[in-house]
C-alpha cells in the first residue's frame, strides 16, 4: 500500500510539472485561433514532459531506474524500422481512404500529390529528414508519456488500462490547443468538445502503438522517432491529396473534421488495436508460463 501511495504521488508530481507550463504558455500566448503568438513557447511545448520527468526523478530520488534510456534490446532494428515506416505509410493510407469515402469530385489520380510526383517525393523525403533531425522534440514527449507515466500507471492497474489512461491524459495535455482549434480546426459540430473526444480516441490508440514499440525494445527512442515523424510527415504529405492539380480544394462529402477522422483514424485505430493485442498476448503467455512453472 505505501508503494502505491508513493507511485500516486510521483505521478501527481509529474503531471503537475508536465501540465502547468504547457497550460500557462498555451493560454498566455494563444492567438485564439489555434496557434501561439510566441514562437519560442510553441517550440518548447513538446519538451516539458521530459523536463517534468527529470525534475520528478530528482525530487523523488528515483534515479534512472526503468527510464528506458538505453538503445534497446538486441534485434531491436525491426522496431526502429517500423517506427519509421508507420509514419511514412500513414498519410498514403489516409489519402486512399479520403478519396474512397470522403472526396466527392475527382479521384486520387487528379490530386496535386500524384499529378506532381517530383514535388510529392521531395516533400516526403524532406519531411522525413526534418523529423529525424528534430527527434529531440519527440523524445521530449515520449520520455514523459511512454517512458514514465505508462510504467508508473502499470504499477497501479493492468497494462491495457494504463495505456488507455495514458492516452486520455496525453490528449487532455493538448487541451488549450484543442480548445482554440489547433488540431481539428473550429468548423465542426460540438466545437471544441468533439475535438477533445477525437483527440482522446487518437491518443489512446497511438499510446498503445508507441507503448508497444517502447516495451518491445525496452527503449524510448523508437517511440520518439515515430512520434516526431508522425508530426512532420503526416500533415505535409496528406495535404497535397486534398487539392487537385489546379490547386483547388476537393469537395468533400463531410466537413474537414469528419474528413480527417474518416481518413486518418482507421490506420491509427488498427495499429493501436493490434499493438494492444500483441502486448496483451505476450503478457498472458508470460503469465501462463510462470503459472505452469
Amino acid at each position: 500500500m505505501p508503494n502505491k501511495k508513493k507511485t500516486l504521488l510521483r505521478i501527481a508530481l509529474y503531471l503537475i510539472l508536465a501540465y502547468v507550463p504547457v497550460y500557462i504558455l498555451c493560454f498566455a500566448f494563444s492567438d485564439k485561433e489555434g496557434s501561439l503568438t510566441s514562437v519560442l513557447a510553441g517550440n518548447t511545448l513538446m519538451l516539458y514532459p521530459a523536463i517534468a520527468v527529470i525534475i520528478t526523478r530528482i525530487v523523488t530520488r528515483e534515479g534512472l531506474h526503468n527510464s528506458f534510456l538505453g538503445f534497446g534490446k538486441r534485434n531491436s532494428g525491426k522496431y526502429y524500422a517500423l517506427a519509421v515506416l508507420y509514419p511514412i505509410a500513414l498519410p498514403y493510407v489516409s489519402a486512399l481512404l479520403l478519396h474512397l469515402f470522403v472526396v466527392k469530385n475527382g479521384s486520387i489520380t487528379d490530386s496535386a500529390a500524384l499529378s506532381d510526383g517530383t514535388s510529392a517525393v521531395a516533400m516526403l523525403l524532406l519531411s522525413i529528414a526534418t523529423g529525424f533531425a528534430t527527434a529531440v522534440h519527440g523524445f521530449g514527449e515520449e520520455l514523459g508519456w511512454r517512458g514514465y507515466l505508462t510504467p508508473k500507471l502499470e504499477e497501479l492497474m493492468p497494462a491495457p488500462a494504463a495505456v488507455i489512461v495514458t492516452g486520455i491524459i496525453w490528449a487532455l495535455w493538448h487541451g488549450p490547443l484543442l480548445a482554440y482549434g489547433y488540431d481539428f480546426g473550429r468548423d465542426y459540430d460540438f466545437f471544441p468538445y468533439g475535438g477533445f473526444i477525437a483527440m482522446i480516441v487518437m491518443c489512446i490508440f497511438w499510446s498503445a502503438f508507441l507503448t508497444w514499440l517502447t516495451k518491445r525494445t525496452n527503449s524510448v527512442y523508437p517511440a520518439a522517432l515515430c512520434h516526431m515523424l508522425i508530426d512532420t510527415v503526416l500533415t505535409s504529405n496528406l495535404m497535397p491529396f486534398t487539392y487537385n492539380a489546379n490547386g483547388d480544394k476537393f469537395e468533400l462529402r463531410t466537413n474537414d473534421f469528419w474528413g480527417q477522422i474518416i481518413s486518418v483514424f482507421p490506420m491509427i485505430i488498427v495499429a493501436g488495436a493490434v499493438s494492444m493485442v500483441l502486448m496483451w498476448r505476450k503478457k498472458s503467455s508470460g503469465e501462463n508460463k510462470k503459472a505452469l512453472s
Partner: protein
Amino acid sequence: MTGLLYKLIRTNWVKILLFFLGSMFYPFMFALIFRSDDMKDDLTSGISIMLWAFMAFMVFLIGGVCEDSIFNDDERKKWAYFVASTPTGIKGQIGAKYLFTLCYSMLTVTALILCCGFARDGSSELADGSVIFIGFFYIQLTMRAIEFPLMARFGSKIGKSLKIIIIGIAAFIFFAYMLFGDTSAFADMDTFFDRLLAALADENKVKRMTLWFSIITLAVIPIYYLSYRLAVKWYLKGVESYAK
C-alpha cells in the same frame, strides 16, 4: 552499447557541457541583439537568414571539435583490446561514439531552433532558420561520416590529416574548375544573380533541384550508418597505430 555511451558521457560531461554552452553563447547573444529595438529596422529577412547560417556554421564547427575529441578520447591499446574482448565489442565501442555524435548534433539543432524562436519573438521580420539548422545538421553528419572511419583506421592524428587532404583535393578540383571550366555564370555578380533568379523562376528546375536536395539530405543517414560499419571493420587495424 548503452553502458559505453554512459561511460563516455560520464567521463566527459564537463567537456561536453562546456562545449555545448560555449557553442550556444554566440547564437544566444545574437538572439538578444536581434530582439533589441535598434536592430529591428535594419534586419531584413534575407540578412537574418545569412546571420543564422553563419551562426549555425560556427556552432556546428565547435560541436565538431567536441565530437572529434570524444571520438579519440580513449585511444589506448590496452583499452581497445579490452573493449574488443567484451560482449559489447567493437560495435558497442564505435557505436557509442557515433550515437553520441548523432545525439549531440540533434541537441544542437534543437537549441538553435529555440534560440531562433527566442529571437523571432522579439522581431517578426526575422526569418525562420530551422531549414538552415537542419541542413547544417546533415552536413555535420556527413563530415563525421568521412572522418570517423579514417580516425578509426589510422588513429586520430593521421585520420584528421587525411580528412584535410580529402577536403584539400575537393577544394583543388573546385579551384581548377573555376580556373579552366565554364565559369560564365560567375563572370560578375549581376550575371550570377540573373542566372540564379532565372533558375528559381523555372518551376520544373526548382522542383528537380528540391528533389535532388531532398535525396542528398536523406542519403546522409545510410551513409552515416555505412561509415559506422566501416569504422567497426577498421578499428582493430587502427589500434596498431596508437602511440600508447
